[in-house]
């Protein structure tokens, strides 16, 4: 390695910049601006490689020079995780947007990491197929970004998470290795399941350059309903009854807040005959008067939660609980919010995953989050803070790391020994 380069890492010596330019071209190596800041850290360069080999080379050079690299897709979730310890280079997948192969008859697709979810869905839709995932902001969010953040929405109940949809991956490692695992077929147990390892790793192990997904057909028909209930306990009863029934619903989510009584949305997909029969069963299960046609907004419920007006007074968390703990959890949130004088809204899926928005003074938010996290962790659950006011007292985004942390650090050490990728942003200081 070039020693001079290392010593100049912080200032990004022109020789290194020249190397980057030689690789990807002048127009794709730009000085970072204030708009490129990531949770308070100001990177110096934004580099947009055109191929995965170029990306791997940029990563290798940066790693050798001791630079911190922040992979970036659509940039919609860059604030997720803890503050970065360092930030030098934004490695953008903006030019890597190709849908390499839609093998529609095999229900699979191979796509580059920088392709937006929406563009991917439009292409798949031409053959009546979809990636069965409803992530946040699909018009901007990229395949690499949703994978790295393990984003999932209401469809997860039926189709599983990204870990269940991804069947192959190629990643670039900080030493310049491009490694593939998995493959192009849905059923495959050859070698370690690294697609799952990098899903949700927040880009701390390698940079995802392409992924292969299994696909699902678009539904023939769909029908959704809204069920109103008087309190969380009644909602819980309804949700558990549906889960314990023979209904084949595609999603089931419940809304709670300090303003309105709870309501649940349920979606069915299938044949006309099947939908009619399921509607009849649903009406039997719920009190007849409380069932109404759902509006389209059930698909955007999560984005609405994120559409807050005051970032300095809002916290958004992802919570994970046992499905049967829904009512006690909502009651806990109510109590805690009252104690700390914060406003709240929640969206909880039948899987036990949920999203909670708290609004109030930063100090009060922090106290409320701490109290909630303590309770949820005590019940095998978790609370991950994905948006916090910048002026809030220190509050780890992820919570207490389990007995697995040394093993996670060992995996990180193996793949990114110099801590080049997203340093400090992940669990337990990784």
């Amino acid at each position, binding site marked *: 390695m070039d020693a001079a380069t290392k010593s100049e890492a912080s200032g990004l010596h022109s020789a290194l910049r020249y190397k980057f330019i030689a690789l990807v071209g002048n127009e794709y190596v730009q000085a970072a601006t204030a708009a490129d800041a990531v949770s308070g850290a100001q990177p110096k360069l934004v580099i947009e490689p055109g191929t995965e080999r170029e990306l791997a080379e940029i990563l290798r050079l940066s790693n050798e020079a001791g630079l911190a690299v922040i992979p970036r897709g659509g940039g919609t979730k860059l604030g997720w995780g803890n503050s970065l310890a360092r930030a030098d280079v934004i490695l953008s997948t903006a030019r890597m947007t190709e849908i390499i192969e839609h093998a529609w008859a095999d229900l699979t697709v191979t796509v580059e990491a920088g392709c937006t979810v929406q563009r991917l869905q439009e292409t798949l839709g031409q053959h009546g197929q979809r990636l069965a995932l409803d992530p946040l902001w699909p018009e901007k969010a990229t395949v690499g970004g949703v994978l790295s953040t393990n984003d999932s929405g209401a469809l997860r109940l039926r189709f599983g998470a990204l870990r269940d949809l991804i069947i192959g991956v190629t990643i670039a490692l900080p030493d310049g290795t491009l490694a593939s695992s998995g493959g192009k077929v849905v059923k495959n147990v050859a070698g*370690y399941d690294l697609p799952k390892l990098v899903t949700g790793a927040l880009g701390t192990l390698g940079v995802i350059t392409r992924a292969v997904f299994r696909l699902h057909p678009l539904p023939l028909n769909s029908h959704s309903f809204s069920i109103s209930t008087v309190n969380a306990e009644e909602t819980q009863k309804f949700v558990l009854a549906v889960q314990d*029934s023979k209904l*084949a619903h595609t999603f089931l989510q419940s809304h709670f807040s300090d303003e309105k009584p709870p309501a649940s949305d349920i979606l069915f997909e299938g044949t006309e005959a099947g939908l009619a*029969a399921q509607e009849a069963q649903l009406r039997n299960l719920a009190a007849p008067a409380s069932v109404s046609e759902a509006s389209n907004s059930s698909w955007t419920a999560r984005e609405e939660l994120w559409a807050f007006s005051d970032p300095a007074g809002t916290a958004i968390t992802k919570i994970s609980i046992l*499905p049967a703990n829904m009512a006690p959890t909502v009651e806990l949130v109510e109590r805690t919010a009252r104690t700390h004088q914060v406003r709240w809204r929640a969206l909880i899926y039948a899987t036990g995953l949920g999203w909670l928005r708290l609004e109030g003074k930063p100090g009060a938010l922090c106290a409320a989050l701490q109290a909630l996290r303590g309770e949820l962790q005590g019940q095998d659950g978790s609370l991950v803070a994905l948006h916090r006011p910048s002026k809030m007292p220190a509050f780890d985004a992820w919570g207490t*790391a389990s007995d697995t942390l040394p093993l996670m650090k*060992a*995996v990180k050490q193996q793949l990114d020994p110099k801590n080049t990728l997203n340093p400090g942003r992940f669990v337990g200081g990784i």
Partner: protein
Amino acid sequence: MNLMEARILAELRTIVGDRGLISSPEELHTYECDGLTNFRVMPRAVLLPNSTEQVQAVVRICHRERIPFVARGSGTGLSGGALPVENGIVISLARMNRILEVDLPNARVVVEPGVINLDVTGRVAPQEYFYAPDPSSQSICSIGGNVAENSGGAHCLKYGFTTTHVLGLEVVLPDGSLVHLGGKTLDTPGYDLAGVFVGSEGTLGVATKIILRIVKRPECIRTLLAAFPSTNEAGAAVSDIIAAGMLPAAIEMMDNLAIQAAEAAVHANYPSCGGLLLVELDGPVAEVEALMSHVKEICRSNGASEIRLAQSDAERALVWKGRKAAFAAMGRISPNYIVQDGVIPRTALPQVMSEIERLSQETGLRVANVFHAGDGNLHPLVLYDRRISGQEEAAELLSNNILELCIAAGGSITGEHGVGEDKKKMMSKMFAEPDLVTMQRVRCAFDPLQLSNPTKIFPTPRLCGEKRGEYLPHPIESAGIAERY
């Protein structure tokens, strides 16, 4: 540990007791192979711990003494994953067979690794739940073994694999420490190490508790048998079913030879034909009936000569019995056979089938075909007679050639049986060296001394800490456009 000292054996005995240690050669024979019987290695000892603490204590001694160990469930694996390692010990989890917790409201069951797959369903069946992964050996195979191999089964087309249904694991790492991967709730913060562990074939540690997800039984299950002139027409029907936007619970296919064998073995009352399709739909009655009439139309339009719907649970069970007994049934029509497990993109089926037929004719060896047709998972069975000189070698070669066809078609060398000892050499045909090196770097994080089932999966094991792969020149560098910096 060529000479496993008496003191180590004595120490192991104090952990597991007299009944938990097997070291006499005659008893050890039982453990010298798993379901793949052509590889045999005699272990130095077999340990049968009955608690997590005992597993930890045994593994700590292995770690201290650098003794390789192999965890073993029921020994039904078909890739030699539980094959003992020379001079190593086997840790059998057979005595850890308790179902620890059944939590119906949350649809979770917590089990020890020695619990038999079908017993999980047995426990929750009265409340109309089931455990979805259903390998053909489900009445004898263990959940721990399923976790190691990421076992599939006929219904993974709709329900997914073992990994889909494992939410959390308690694992004894190869240094004896205990970790909890995943958990009862979803998306535990941190890396998805449970996802990495499932399917790692015992090379990352020993699972001692497993949190499973169970599934509510659908309102109805309908099973259809359709007889086609050949597997080509049957395959075309499968493509049409998928193209119509359906996701059946299972689609199985058998060729004529497989049908004959299954008939001979269990009298499943299959129609005699060139290609038999078994399609199972499940879900709400109205939905299933609407879709089933569509499936029938598709079968007819693709030339099905006979279409039958199982009329009762007993009929349905018989249909499945024939399918699940298909491997063992080969014994009825051939003295010896090799069970192969490969995967192809479903659309490559006609081409790969005709290639298999060509190979079969070239070698003069018969090949029976049983497929999980919905997901392209082939189980060609290569029939041979060991007593005829050269046939065994020819059969092995043919079996390997079929895997090469799978790789060439863009598929995989194994869909559910695992790599184990059997397919290590094929790994370098499916993956490039950097891919395999990267997997082994992950392995080094779990098992730096390489004690846990050390000789499996990878064709060329690398020592942890070994220098990483060679530098790969960038294309523009090779082309002389840029130089290395």
